[in-house]
Each structure stands twice: as C-alpha cells, then as structure tokens.
C-alpha cells in the first residue's frame, strides 16, 4: 500500500496531493500540466517534496518532519518513462538486466523469460535501443523496470509518444502486466480512452490537487470534458 501526502512549490505552480494506492492499477488522471509527472517523480525520489510523507508498505520513503529521504536507488520502485530512456550503449538484453545487475542478485532465467514472453521482446535481445521502433522501445522499457523486481511500478504516459496503432498494439501488454506481474501500478495519463481498460482505481488531478478518487466510472463521467 502506498500513502502519498506531499506538497511542492514548482515556480508559480503548487502541487499538494494526498492519496492512497493499493494493489492493481491506480491511474493518476488529469490534463497536461496538472502535476501528474511531478507527483510520480516525488514517489520515485527524483523530485524532493517541500513537505509531507511518502510511505510504501510501511516503509517510510520520505518524511519531511523526521528528515527521512531515501534516495531513488534504494526505493525499489520501477519507473517506465514517457520516452523510454533506454541506455543507448547497452543491448536490449543488458538494458533488461541492468536492474538485476545493480541489485547484486543472481540472474534468474525463469523471471527473465517470463518478462520477455509477457512483452514479446525475445527477438530484440541483441539489438541496440537505437535500432528499435517506438513500440518496441516502450515494451523494453517496461521489461527493464519489471525485471528489477520492484515493489511498485510507475508509468508516466508510456504510450504518449506512440501513434494510435502502436497504442492499440501495446495496451494488451499493459493489461497483462497489471494482471500477471503481481506488482501494483501507478499509471499517469491524460487519455481517458487509453486508461479505461487498465484502471482499477482513478485519482483525478487538477491544477496540482486531487479533486476526486474512485473507480473506472470517474473516467466515463469526465470523458465528455476531457478531449483525448
């Protein structure tokens, strides 16, 4: 279970959020500029809140009063970035294995094969990121985050840089991820249609604050005023 209560001033814009996320896929939903990426960057430890608390499974990751701030490398939270951010000087295989390598654990062939099959990237292992299509890159990015055995997986609009056909192609993989990977997801998006299939819970973010939390029905109600 993830508890987030943080505030941060970003120039003229203030983020002040409070929400809880349990298993399944929690969608952080809102327009561009609502502060969604800032929130997950705070969860990952890439952005330091001005004040607040972030607790994951009873593990305090950040607490401004107690002066606790666990560095991102020790939070064990996977992050799939909007642009993928694959390491260009490593092959796909080494990219996928990077998290495991950093952890010091032994290589687990079964886990590796499972992730590779889940995302259908087996034929790409020897390639370099520079030679992958957008869709392939994002699947490898998901695989890389998954193979570090995270306690939580953050996805920042992973389909935003893809065209409609690629999105349709990858969504099933993300649904499988939610169902078969046994790790809670926090999925950031501004596209209601895209996340309707994935969301088990929705947290609506507007101008830096949480305005509503609920189930998938939140996406239907607001779909009319949200141009995807």
């Amino acid at each position: 279970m993830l508890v987030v209560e943080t505030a941060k001033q970003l120039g003229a814009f203030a983020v002040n959020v409070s929400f809880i996320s349990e298993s399944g896929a929690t969608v952080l939903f809102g327009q561009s500029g609502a502060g969604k990426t800032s929130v997950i960057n705070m969860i990952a430890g890439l952005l330091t809140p001005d004040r607040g608390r972030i607790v994951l499974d009873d593990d305090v990751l950040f607490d401004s009063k107690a002066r606790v701030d666990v560095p991102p490398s020790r939070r064990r939270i996977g992050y799939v970035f909007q642009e993928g951010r694959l390491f260009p000087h490593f092959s796909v295989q080494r990219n996928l294995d990077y998290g495991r390598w950093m952890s010091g654990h032994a290589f687990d062939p079964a886990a590796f094969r499972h992730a590779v099959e889940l995302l259908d990237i087996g034929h790409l292992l020897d390639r370099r990121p520079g030679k992958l299509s957008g869709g392939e890159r994002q699947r490898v990015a998901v695989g890389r985050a998954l193979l570090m055995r995270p306690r939580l997986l953050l996805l920042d609009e992973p389909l935003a840089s893809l065209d409609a056909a690629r999105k349709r192609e990858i969504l099933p993989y993300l649904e499988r991820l939610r169902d078969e990977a046994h790790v809670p997801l926090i999925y950031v998006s501004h596209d209601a249609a895209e996340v309707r299939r994935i969301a088990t819970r929705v947290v609506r973010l507007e101008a830096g604050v949480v305005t509503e939390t609920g189930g998938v029905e939140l996406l239907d109600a607001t779909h009319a005023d949200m141009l995807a």
Partner: protein
Amino acid sequence: MFELSPQDWTAVQLSLRVAAVSTVVALPFGIAIATLLARKEFWGKALLDAMVLLPLVLPPVVTGYLLLIVFGRRAPVGAFLADHFGIVFSFRWTGAALACGIMAFPLMVRAIRLSIEAIDTRLEDAAATLGANRVWRFATITLPLALPGIIAGAILAFTRALGEFGATITFVSNIPGETQTISAAIYTLTQVPSGDADALKLVIVSVIISLVALIAAEWLARRATARIHGA
C-alpha cells in the same frame, strides 16, 4: 639516408615517454575535475574554472617559472616531495612530464567536460530508479557515454605535451637524455649553423608522430561513438 643521431633519437623517445606519462597521470584528475565542473555548483566554482584555464592563457615561460618556485628542488612542494617520497622534478624527465601535464590539462578538461555536459541526465535518473547509486551511475552510464570526449581529451593532451617547449625549458632546462624533448632538440639544432639537416629530420619525425596520433584519435573516437549509438 634518413637516420637520426643517437642524441636526436633519444629526444624522440624522451618526448614520447614524457607525453605518455603526463597524459596517463593527468587523466584521472582531468576526469574528476571535468565531472565536478560539469555537474556540480559550489562556492568557488568560477575560481576553479579560471585556474584550470590558466596554463592555456599564461605565457608558457611564466608557467614554467611558477613551476620552478613551487616544485623546484628547494621550493616548498618540491622539497617536500623529494624528502618524503623521493620524487624529484628539477632537471629530470619527471619535471618535463609535470610541465607537459600542466600545460595540456586545460585542453583535456575542456574536451571531457563538454562530453559530460552533453550526456542526458535523465538517463542517469533512469539508472537511479533501477538501483544504481552515484558511483555505479558514474561508472556504467556517465563514463561510457563520455568516452569519445575522454579519448579526444587524452589525445589532445598527448599531442600538446609532445609539442611543449616554453614551460619545460624554463622549469627543467634543456638536458639531453633527461629533459631535451623534440622541440628543445630542434631549437638547439637551429642555433647551430650545421644543425639544419638534423633539425629537419626531427621536424619530419614530429609531424609524422602528430599525424599518427590524430588519425588514431579520430578512429578511436569514431568507434566509441558508434558503439554508444548502437552500431
């Protein structure tokens, strides 16, 4: 026939040795300072930046003289190093290496710094989320991606060191076999009427070495860049 006298050949070997040692020793410092200047903000940063740049703008002879009053046999640092570690710079090839290293340092740092600044820090953020602490991020992401710049910086420093003259001759004088590098040897030969032919031979050797170094640098940097971009 193209033959070098023993003295001239010694000058060539000495130059290569001095340039190689100064480059290899300067490299870890160059990488460290370049990383610091590229990535960190701190009080006194402008001062450090200026000091690193200084050997590039000071007259070489002035740099040589400064080396003399700091690292000379009876100077503060020089005496300390000689008494406690047995390292002597005065009138030794080690002094030539120090002079070359200092003169080449700004070029090395600049090339490496540009290369590090060009690295997308978002890749390092991604590495952090995957469990890499600062040291591992530097070793597995920053350094490999900065490699073309590091190679360029090293070769630049090497060729600059090969050509060093003013600071070297002021600091450790012009002793054949010990501190007489190619440049000093050529200079000495041109001061003597009969030395022109030998001077020309050394000039040709110098040009050849520089060309080989530049071609090697270009080739290495291309290979490193290709490897980074997934060829």
